[in-house]
C-alpha cells in the first residue's frame, strides 16, 4: 500500500500561510514553512479537519473527475446515504434516478449496504457478548476511515477493539461484484465502481486499498452541479430506492447505534471529541460501555468535509427521511439477505487485512536516542514561551521543541526568543555605542587609574 498517498492536498496559490489549519489538526500533521502549509504525510489521517478550517479553501481533496467514467463500459454508482441529505426537497428515489440520468448504468445504494452491515454487526456482537471478557474496553465501529486511521497512528492498543466489519460502501461494492458482475459478461476492468463520497477519508481508503474493490470516488462537490441540474427537471423517479430509514439514518451521528441497537452504546462525533474519548477508553475508564460509534465529522457523515449542505441542516433533513422510510426496524428482507450472504461466506463482511499499527509519535527508533532527544525536548520546551502562538509554523511550543530536536526547525524560529535575542543584542550595541574612542576621552578616564 502507498501509505504516502493522501486525498487531502494543498492548493499552494490559495494558501496564505496562516496558522489556522496547523492548530486544528488532530495529529499535528501540518507545518507552515516558507509561507505555505505543508502536510507531513505519515501523520495525516485524512480526516478533512483542515479542509473545514481553511478560510482560503486552500485545502482540498483529490477526488476523481467525472471524465474518468469514459474509461468504463459499465458504470456503477455507490451513493453515500449522506448524499440524500444534500437536497431539501428531492427524495432518495429522485436522486437515484438522477444518477442514472447522469450516465451510471447501475446505482447500488450504500444505505442499503448499511442495512446489511447492520445485520453483520449485530451477529458479530451477539457472538462477542456470549463470551464477553469482563472489564474490557468497548468495541469500536470501523465505519469511519479517519477514526480507524487515528487509532492506527495514535491509539494502537485499541486496534483489537475495532470490529472487523467492512464499512457499508465496501459491502455495497462487494455485493455488486458477487451478484451483478457475473451477469454482465464483462471483464472486471471494463466495469467502473465509484463511491460518491462525503469525506476525504474514504477517498484515501479507496485509492490506497491493497486490493481494488472500488475503482474511484467522486466528491459531492464534483457531482452536485450536474445532479442538481437533473433534479431540477423534476422528472418522475424511474426507480424506487431499496433502503429503509435504518440504512439512511447511518449518515448521522448516532444512526449506526440506532440501527445496531446495542445496549450501553455510545456515539461520539467530531475528531477532537473522538480523540478525547479514545484517551479515556485507552485508560480503561469506559469499560462499562459495550460499543462506540465514532465519526470524525461533526454530526456524522452528513457533516463530511466534502458535503455542500450545512451539517445541522443536513442532519435534520436526514432525520426526517429516516423517519419517513422507517428507522425502527431492520426490514425482514434485509435480514434474510444478509443471513444468506453469511451462510455462503462467513467472512463476507469482514476486513481483508488486519489493520497494522502505524505509530507516528516516536522520536527515534532507538530507545537510548529517543530518551536523549526527549530530555533535550523538555529542556527546549522550558525555554519556549508556552503561548502556542503558531507563528513559528509548528502548532504548539511542544511541537516546535520536537521539530528542533528532529532538526526540522531552530530555536530562533520562535519569534519571542528571536525578540529576546534581539533585545540582548541591542543592549550590547548600546554599550558598544557608548564607549568613546581614545581620542575622545576614554584615555582620560583610564588615566587616573592606569597611567604608570
Amino acid at each position, binding site marked *: 500500500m502507498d501509505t504516502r498517498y493522501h486525498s487531502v492536498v494543498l492548493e499552494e496559490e490559495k494558501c496564505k500561510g496562516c496558522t489556522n489549519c496547523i492548530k486544528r489538526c488532530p495529529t499535528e500533521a501540518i507545518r507552515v514553512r516558507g509561507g505555505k502549509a505543508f502536510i507531513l504525510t505519515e501523520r495525516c489521517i485524512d480526516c478533512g479537519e483542515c479542509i473545514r478550517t481553511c478560510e482560503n479553501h486552500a485545502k482540498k481533496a483529490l477526488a476523481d473527475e467525472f471524465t474518468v467514467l469514459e474509461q468504463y463500459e459499465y458504470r456503477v454508482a455507490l451513493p453515500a446515504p449522506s448524499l440524500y441529505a444534500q437536497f431539501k426537497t428531492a427524495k432518495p428515489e429522485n436522486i437515484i434516478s438522477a444518477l442514472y440520468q447522469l450516465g451510471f448504468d447501475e446505482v447500488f445504494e450504500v444505505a442499503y449496504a448499511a442495512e446489511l452491515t447492520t445485520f453483520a454487526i449485530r451477529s458479530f456482537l451477539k457472538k462477542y457478548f456470549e463470551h464477553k471478557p469482563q472489564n474490557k474496553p468497548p468495541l469500536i465501529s470501523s465505519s469511519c476511515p479517519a477514526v480507524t486511521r487515528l487509532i492506527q497512528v495514535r491509539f*494502537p492498543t485499541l486496534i483489537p477493539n475495532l470490529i472487523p466489519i467492512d464499512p457499508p460502501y465496501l459491502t455495497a461494492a462487494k455485493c455488486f461484484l458477487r451478484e451483478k458482475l457475473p451477469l454482465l459478461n464483462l471483464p472486471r476492468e471494463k466495469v467502473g465502481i465509484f463511491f460518491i463520497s462525503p469525506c476525504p477519508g474514504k477517498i484515501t481508503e479507496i485509492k490506497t486499498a491493497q486490493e481494488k474493490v472500488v475503482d474511484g470516488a467522486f466528491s459531492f462537490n464534483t457531482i452536485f452541479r450536474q445532479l442538481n441540474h437533473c433534479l431540477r427537471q423534476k422528472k418522475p423517479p424511474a426507480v424506487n430506492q431499496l433502503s429503509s430509514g435504518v440504512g439512511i439514518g447511518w449518515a448521522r451521528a448516532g444512526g449506526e447505534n440506532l440501527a445496531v441497537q446495542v445496549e450501553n452504546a455510545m456515539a461520539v462525533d467530531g475528531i477532537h471529541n473522538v480523540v478525547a474519548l479514545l484517551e479515556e477508553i485507552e*485508560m480503561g475508564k469506559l469499560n462499562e460501555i459495550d460499543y462506540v460509534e465514532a465519526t470524525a465529522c461533526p454530526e456524522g457523515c452528513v457533516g463530511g468535509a466534502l458535503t455542500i449542505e450545512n451539517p445541522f441542516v443536513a442532519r435534520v433533513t436526514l432525520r426526517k427521511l429516516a423517519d419517513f422510510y422507517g428507522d425502527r426496524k431492520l426490514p425482514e428482507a434485509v435480514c434474510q439477505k444478509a443471513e444468506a450472504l453469511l451462510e455462503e461466506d462467513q467472512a463476507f463482511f469482514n476486513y481483508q487485512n488486519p489493520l497494522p499499527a502505524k505509530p507516528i509519535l516516536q522520536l527515534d527508533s532507538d*530507545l537510548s536516542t529517543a530518551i536523549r532527544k526527549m530530555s533535550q525536548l523538555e529542556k527546549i520546551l522550558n525555554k519556549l514561551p508556552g503561548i502556542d502562538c503558531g507563528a513559528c509554523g509548528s502548532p504548539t511550543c511542544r511541537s516546535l521543541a520536537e521539530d528542533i530536536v528532529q532538526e526540522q526547525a531552530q530555536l530562533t524560529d520562535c519569534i519571542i526568543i528571536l525578540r529576546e535575542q534581539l533585545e540582548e543584542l541591542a543592549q550590547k550595541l548600546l554599550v558598544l555605542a557608548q564607549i568613546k574612542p581614545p581620542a575622545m576621552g576614554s584615555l582620560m578616564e583610564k588615566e587616573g587609574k592606569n597611567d604608570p
Partner: protein
Amino acid sequence: MILEIPVESYNFSAAGEAASRVKKTLQRLGIDSQLIRRVAIATYEAEMNIVIHSDGGKIILQVDEEEIKVQAIDQGKGIADLELAMKEGYSTAPDEVREMGFGAGMGLPNMKKCADRLEIKSVVNEGTTVVMGFKNQS
C-alpha cells in the same frame, strides 16, 4: 530522562492529566504500546489516589534502557493498614467520591497487577510514596 508532574488534591477535572502526559511521553520514546497501556493505567490509579486521599503531590517518571519507573509521592494522611489497602474492594474513599464513580477499592490492586514491581512506603499523617517499576522489553 526525568519528568515531574504536580498533582492537586481533589481536583477531579484535572485528574488523569499526569497519566496522560506519562503516556504521551512514552509514546514519544517509542515504547511498546501494550507496555504503555499498563504504565498509563497504573499511573492513572496512582494519580487518582493522590487526588482522592492526599493533600497533593506529584508523579515522577524516569526512563532508562532497562526500566520505566513511576513514583507517586504525596503529602497527607498516609495509609494506616497497607495489607488491608491492597485488598480488592477495600476503600477508605468518602461517599461523595464514590458517588462520582471513583474510589472503588481497585487502585492499589490494579497497580500491583500492572507493574512489574511495586513498593509502597507510607507514614500516617505524613504521606505516601509509591514506586512502580516496569521492565523495558526492547
